[in-house]
C-alpha cells in the first residue's frame, strides 16, 4: 500500500489516491486530499458536497447515486465537474474519504 505526503501529513492510500481506511478521515484529510484534485482551498459548495457524501456514507454504508447527489444538493452535473474536475466518483468521493467506487467502471 503506497503512502503520500500532503501538506506534511502522511496518508496510506491506494494506487488511485483513495484513503486506505475510510474511518481515518477528518476535515484536514479532506483538505489535504483535495490538493490532489487541484483544489487548494475548498469552497463552501465543495464542502457541502463532501459533507453530504460523508454523511450519506456513514448513514447507509454506500455512496449515493449521482442523480440523487445532484438532486439533493441542488447542483447540476456539470457544476459537480467544475467543482471536482475528475467527477463525483473519482474526485468528490476521494476527498470525502469514501471507499473507491466500483459501480461505475
Amino acid at each position, binding site marked *: 500500500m503506497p503512502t503520500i505526503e500532503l501538506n506534511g501529513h502522511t496518508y496510506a492510500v491506494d494506487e488511485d489516491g483513495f484513503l486506505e481506511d475510510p474511518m481515518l478521515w477528518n476535515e484536514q484529510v479532506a483538505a489535504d486530499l483535495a490538493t490532489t484534485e487541484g483544489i487548494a482551498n475548498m469552497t463552501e459548495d465543495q464542502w457541502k458536497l463532501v459533507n453530504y457524501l460523508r454523511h450519506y456514507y456513514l448513514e447507509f454504508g*454506500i455512496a449515493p447515486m449521482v*442523480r440523487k447527489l445532484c438532486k439533493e444538493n441542488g447542483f447540476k*452535473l456539470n457544476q459537480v*465537474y467544475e467543482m471536482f474536475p*475528475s467527477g463525483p*466518483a*473519482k474526485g468528490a468521493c476521494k476527498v470525502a474519504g469514501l471507499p473507491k467506487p*466500483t459501480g*461505475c*467502471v
Partner: protein
Amino acid sequence: MSDERRPTPKLDDLEKGPWPSFVREMKRAAEGSAMADQLLGVLELSYGDRVGHWKHGGVVGVRGYGAGVIGRYSDVPEQFPEVAQFHTMRVNHPAGWFYKTDALRKVCDIWEKHGSGLTNLHGATGDIILLGMKTESLEPVFAELTENGFDLGGSGSVVRTPSCCVGPARCEWACFDTLALTYDLTQHYQDEIHRPSLPYKFKIKASGCPNDCVAAIARADLSIIGTWRDAIDVDQEAVGTYAADGLDVRATVCDRCPSKCMAWDGTSLDIDNSACVRCMHCINVMPKALRPGLERGACILIGGKAPIVSGAMLSSVLVPFMKLEPPYTELKELIGKILELWGDEGKNRERVGEFIQRVGLGSFLEAIGLEPMPEMVKHPRENPYVFYEEYFEEEK
C-alpha cells in the same frame, strides 16, 4: 530492447500457425515500447500459473469526464514496473468503422508516443481501444486525440458508445440510415456518454435490417433494427434464374420460411405478406430477386444485456415500427423518457431490462406513455395474477 527480453516460450508457440498472431503484435510493439515488452512477460507468467495478474478496477480518467478510461494496475508491479499502471482508453470510433488512413495513422502516432503501442480494433462495444498507458499520459493523450478530431467513448454507468452496421453505405438491405442515426445520437448524448449519471450502462446499437449485423438485439439496451411494413419486392424473373442455376427454391427458401408463407410452383414465387414476419431469409438467399419493401423504418427493442446479474436478456419489442428520419425526434423523445424514468427509479447496477422485469412491462409502458400492443409479447399472460390499482368500495 530485445536483448534484455525475458524468454516467453509459451507465447512463442503462438507465433506459429496460419492465423495472424497477437503475440507477433505484442512483439512488434515491444520493439518500441517497454510497456508492451513487459506485457509479454506478464502474459507468459499467466500462461505458466494459469491466472491473471491484474488487480481489481482502478478509477482514473481525464478531467471533466467520468468515463472513457478503464484503470488497471498490476499485481506484480515489482517484477513488471513498466506495466504497474496499465490503463486503457476507449476512443469513440467513427460510425460504421470507416476510416481514411491519415486519420488512423494520426491515432497511431499519438499512441506510439504515449502508450504501449497496442490497440484493439475494435473493442466489443465498438470503441478504438488504446491498450495500456500510465496515469500521467492520460491528459496528454486525450488532448492530442481531441486536437485530431477524436473523443472518448463510454465506460461505467453512462450511455455507451453507440454503434451500427455498415448499413446504406454498403448494403442493399438497410431500411434506414444507420450511420446518420448513430452519429446523430452519439452527438446528442455527449454529456451522457462522458459523465456517469445513470443507474448502470446503457447501450445503443443500430442494425439496418433484421439480419442484425451489429448484434444489437443481444448486446444493446436499446436495439434499433430496420424492417419494413409493406410487401417484399419480388423480381419473378430473377427467381427463375436462381432456380435455373440450381437453387432448390422450395427446399432452401420456402420450407425454411418461419411462417411458411411462401410457395414456389416452378415459375412463380407466391408470398403471403400478411403472414411474413420479415425474417430476411428468402431475401438473403436470393438477393438479386427479392428486396425489402419500400415502406421502411425500424423496430425499436429494449432491454438486451449479458447475464450479470439476473441472467442474460435479449431486447424485446417496444415500438414495432417507427419511421426514422432526421432529426429523429420521436426516437429521441422515447429515449429521453426511458432515461428519465430508469435514471430516477432504477437501482444501482440495474440494467433497464432488469428494471422493466421488476416494475412490469405494462407499468413501464404506462410511465413512458406508450400504448400496450400485442406485438410486444409472444403471447398474453398465462398466469391469472393481474394487478388492478383500484377497486370499488361499498358506499358508506
